[in-house]
Each structure stands twice: as C-alpha cells, then as structure tokens.
C-alpha cells in the first residue's frame, strides 16, 4: 500500500495539482482498475482499444485536472471521461453508427455492477492487509491456493478458511456502509 492510500480524493487532487509525483502515482493506482473495468466489462472493448482508452483517459485526467471544480467528485468525472472515450472507440471500430445513436447509457447494466464492485473494493480497504491480499489474489487475480500460500508465506491448508473468514469480515464492513453513490473515499 502506498503512503498516500489513505488520502481522500480531494486531498489527492490537490497534491497532484501542486505537482506531487507520488500523488499522481497513487491516483493512477487507485483508479486503474476502475478505468480498466469500465473499458473491458462495461463496454467490452478489445485489449487494444482498452489500452488506448486507458492511456488516453489518464492523459486527459493529467492535463485537465485543473478544470475539475469539485475535487471530491473525482470518480464520477473519471467515469464520464472513460465512458466517452469508450464510446469514441466503439464508434471508430464500427461497433456503433455514431456516438449519439448510442447515448451515454451504453453498458449501463454492467456499469452499475462496476460501480458496486468499486464500493466493495473501498470496503476491502477497511480490512487487514493480509485479508485484502488474500481476497484480491483469489478473486481479482484468480490465483490458486498454492500460489497465494507461497506468495504470502501462509500454510496452503489454511487458505480456504482464511478466504471464508475474510469474506465474512468484508460483508460486515459492507453492512456498516451506505450504498455507493459515486462519491469519493472520504
């Protein structure tokens, strides 16, 4: 985890605006999965298109960060930038006639799940580092029990029970939270 991972989005934006390179690294780290998921899950772009969108979105974030009025609204702003770029990519590849034919609702069903998944990831941050690692490696990175055990230096026979325990804790964490509203980490 980065030293800056506990900063709110607003604090992170302010540091980025001041030219703090470490803050920029954290911003990319924090939102890389989100942008990636919108491209590949929400809009089902090819890897090639997804990479173009990914780099273009972060270029736009970097060059236009000063124009973001509400620094706490970083996530909805990034979501909007990403959706627009995905629509452009689909239009260019001929998957839609024009962007206006499709509107911004494309992928809305999957997008709802991406937003929900982001809320779960935020809740994950409330767990111990070991739980975060185990759940992320097993579910998001699709690693086997053996790989997780080797990487984290934990007995392989305990991985299944640890996953169950950590999932329970994550559920408790989620129960104590409000529904995802597209806001910041604050």
């Amino acid at each position, binding site marked *: 985890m980065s030293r800056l991972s506990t900063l709110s989005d607003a604090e992170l934006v302010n540091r980025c605006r001041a030219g703090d390179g470490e803050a*920029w690294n954290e911003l*990319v780290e924090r939102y890389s999965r989100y942008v990636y998921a919108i491209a590949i899950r929400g809009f089902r772009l090819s890897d090639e298109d997804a*990479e173009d969108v*990914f*780099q273009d979105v972060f270029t736009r974030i970097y060059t236009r960060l000063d124009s973001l009025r509400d620094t706490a609204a970083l996530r909805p702003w990034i979501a909007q930038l990403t959706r627009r770029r995905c629509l452009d990519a689909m239009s260019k590849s001929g998957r839609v006639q024009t962007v206006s034919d499709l509107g911004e609702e494309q992928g809305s069903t999957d997008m709802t799940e991406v937003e929900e*998944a982001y809320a779960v990831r935020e809740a994950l941050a409330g767990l111990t580092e070991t739980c975060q690692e185990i759940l992320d490696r097993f579910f998001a*990175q699709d690693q086997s029990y053996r790989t997780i055990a080797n990487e984290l230096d934990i007995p392989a026979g305990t991985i299944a029970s640890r996953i169950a325990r950590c999932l329970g804790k994550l559920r408790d964490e989620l129960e104590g939270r409000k529904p995802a509203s597209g806001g910041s980490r604050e």
Partner: protein
Amino acid sequence: MGAQYTEERIGLLLRLLPPAPVAWVRAAQELPAARRTFDDIVSRAEADIAFRDALAADLERTLERAGYEPSERTLSELRKLYADS
C-alpha cells in the same frame, strides 16, 4: 444493504475489478515525465528551425542525438507533429 451481499455476490464483485496490466499502469504513472519531455521538445522545435527540420527528417535519430529518451507514446505524438507532416 448488507442483506444483498452474500459471500458469492461479494466474490463476484471482487472479480469484476481485476488489476489493469502492469505496463499500462506504469505508462500512465510516467505521464508527467513524458509530458515534460514532449513539451520541452516542442518548445525547442518552435525556437530552433534547424532542430525542427532535423526532427522532420529523422525523428528518432535527432532525439537521440539531442539526449532525449522519449516513451513510445511520446514518440508517436511527435511523429504526428513532425515526421508525418
């Protein structure tokens, strides 16, 4: 809200956000340095016609001689400005 979160559902949602490829993340993190390099080269090309002509003639070699080590993405942007013109 909690009632809707079965452990299966949580697992499914965790799977929806896999890590982006490491190289993509690294390239995005290197954007500030890449932008500085790009801006520096463009400023120099605007002020120095000979440098601009050299970029148009042989982009990679001119940059190498001038001591720049631009990323592939920066090179691609510079090609659009100079080499393809």
